């Protein structure tokens, strides 16, 4: 079939695409093979990748990235679905409540991070003071290596669950009411209807939420940097913050190699996952 447009019609978009996307992508593949000080670069083959994989913070970073991605993605699905069911039900002030859930999505991530850093201060933060009044000795949310990453993940969920809820609401609203009426006539309980109608028919929404939040979680950086800077020490470092620190230290080639690795990993996780989830959808 002949294209409806003449060739020159593609040119502006193609130019923007080439200059801003294709060239930098290939340049980064090249620079990942150099020792690059910003001022000059020497070709050193695969040394950067060797150094990067020997980076002790990196192993921790990988584990943390996976934990962070899975925890935030899982909680967003569970909480988002629950909230969506609640907010599509017949409740008072539904429109207002829907907005309230969505508001945190609109706030700047750095602002949220700094606010929660203050709230989570172990000695003077509101959270531990509130816990103190009921006799609970709250932990050092961001200063205890055992909790730091999970605390940040929880804040991420609080901030991002609104978007997941919105997608689920759209999915649930699009389910025809006739199914529910028929099920009710057959005497199905509320749980049966949720299990056998809402959950399977909202599957496209679930797939979208899982993929979006997993990608978001795997490349997550801003909230972690604002709240802990990967600390205490290296205990809440994720791959992206390890890369950023290399860049800050002036190891531009090394950090570019890190970005290439991150690109490969995210693709390797998300591409098969997306195929798998979408195939299931077609089979239904």
């Amino acid at each position, binding site marked *: 079939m002949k294209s409806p447009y003449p060739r*020159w019609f593609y*040119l502006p978009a193609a*130019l923007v695409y080439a*200059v801003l996307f294709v060239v930098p992508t290939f340049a980064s593949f090249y620079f990942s093979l150099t*020792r690059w*000080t*910003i*001022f*000059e670069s020497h070709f050193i083959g695969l040394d950067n990748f060797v*150094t990067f994989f*020997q980076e*002790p*913070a990196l192993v921790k970073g990988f584990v943390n990235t996976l934990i962070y991605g899975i925890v935030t993605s899982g909680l967003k699905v569970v909480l988002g679905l629950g909230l969506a069911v609640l907010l599509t039900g017949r409740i008072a002030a539904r429109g207002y409540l829907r907005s309230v859930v969505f508001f945190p999505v609109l706030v700047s991530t750095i602002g949220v991070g700094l606010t929660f850093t203050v709230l989570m*201060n*172990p*000695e003077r933060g509101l959270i531990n003071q509130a816990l103190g009044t009921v006799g609970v000795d709250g932990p*050092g949310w*961001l*200063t*205890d*290596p055992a909790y730091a990453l999970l605390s940040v993940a929880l804040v991420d969920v609080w901030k991002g669950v609104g978007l997941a809820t919105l997608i689920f609401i759209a999915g649930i609203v699009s389910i025809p009411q006739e199914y529910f009426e028929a099920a009710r006539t057959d005497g199905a309980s509320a749980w049966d209807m949720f299990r056998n109608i809402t959950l399977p028919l909202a599957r496209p929404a679930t797939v979208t939420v899982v993929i979006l939040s997993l990608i978001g979680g795997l490349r997550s950086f801003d909230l972690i940097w604002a709240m802990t*800077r*990967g*600390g*205490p*020490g*290296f*205990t809440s470092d994720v791959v992206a913050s390890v890369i950023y*620190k290399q*860049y*800050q*230290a*002036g*190891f531009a080639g*090394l950090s570019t190699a890190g970005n290439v690795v991150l690109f490969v990993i995210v693709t390797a996780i998300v591409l098969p996952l997306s195929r798998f989830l979408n195939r299931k959808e077609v089979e239904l």
Partner: protein
Amino acid sequence: MKRFLTPLAVLTTVFALTACSAGSLGSSEGDGDGVTLSFLVDNSETAAKVGAGLAKDFSAQNPGITVKVETRPQGTEGDNLIKTRLSTGDMSDVFEYNSGSLLQAIAPAKNLVAVDDQSYAGQLDDNFKTSVTSDGKLYGVPFGGFMSGAILYNKAVFAKNGLQVPKTWAEFMANNTKLKAAGVAPVIQTYQETWTSQLFVLGDFHNVAAAEPDFATNYTKNQAKYATSPAAVKGFQRLQQVHDAGFLNKDFASAKLDDGVRELATGAGAQYPILSSTIAQLAATYPDKVKDIGLYAIPGDDAATNGLTVWAPPAVYIPASTSGAKLDAAKKFLAFIASPQGCTSQANAYPPTGPFAVKGCTLPADVPQAVKDMQTYIDTPGASSLALEFLSPVKGPSLEQICVEVGSGIRKADAGAELYDEDVKKQAQQLGLAGW
């Protein structure tokens, strides 16, 4: 193909043109004899005030030249910004930045204007000159005075508990036991501001050098390591010891520099290993307590060789991108900073916290007690040495995180030292040093 190439060429030209005009925006070249210099300093209170003071006094003396102070973030974020601006040719006309190993990392030969030929070169302190020299060329003039990495202590708390200034680590730990029993936090640490965690390691260098005089040279050659040098690894071990013994303030993990200063001034904590310049902040916030605060060098094994580790002041540099009338004005500005008038101007802008690096400059008589304590070490022959980062270009970027881990019991001292040895390798390779 040709149809494709022409617009690409046009586009490239447009990019090149916009790049040019963005760089020259805000310059006032060409309007008579008036020259405006932009002067980039870090955003600490001290640097901002000293920068503003110098700008004001210099402009008053040179009516044709206006100096406009700009600020930048500190720490690694600032390093990043400086490197990016230098590499894009977009640096301010003059800028303040660290001396020593961090200077080596911005490729001075390529990015800075050398100032060997200037008349004031002979007036600069020799230790300072070493720290702003690269490949035999001098690049900067001192901004502020010398600092030391030492222990600030509350003399009132010491007097109340009948304690003496310790000269050895054993005495230090014995003092700590008594302080803890008296309900005072013996050692203050503030790991929420990660750079403050490094003093037990970096400030111990005089003691390391006393035990192993060739350490710095061998370190640069990749022949000495923190993990394998018995003297150097002690810094990490001691950092772990004060944590394991429970000598730290309760909020060490969440405290910031401000909290540390408050705890020291109010006597909630007795000793704070920190850079001596912190005394200026303490003097500004707690003017009535500053007389209670003294300073002593980080104790080592041997009381006889114990001494102070000294940091050379940061310096003011001219980037290679400054040219024409601005370059002349910038050179005049540097000459002013490196003169006794410049010292006076800095002292008036902010109370100095260490000796100036310009010959002929003296400190005012009313400096805080801690600064007098520091001067005593510097005036005693053999009782002070420059920190390692001024004697060797090799410094790893992750020391602060490693120290936080060792100092909070997350990682053992020996593992921390090994990790740091790995960390510096990247820096040494990046600098292209022989033997790495």
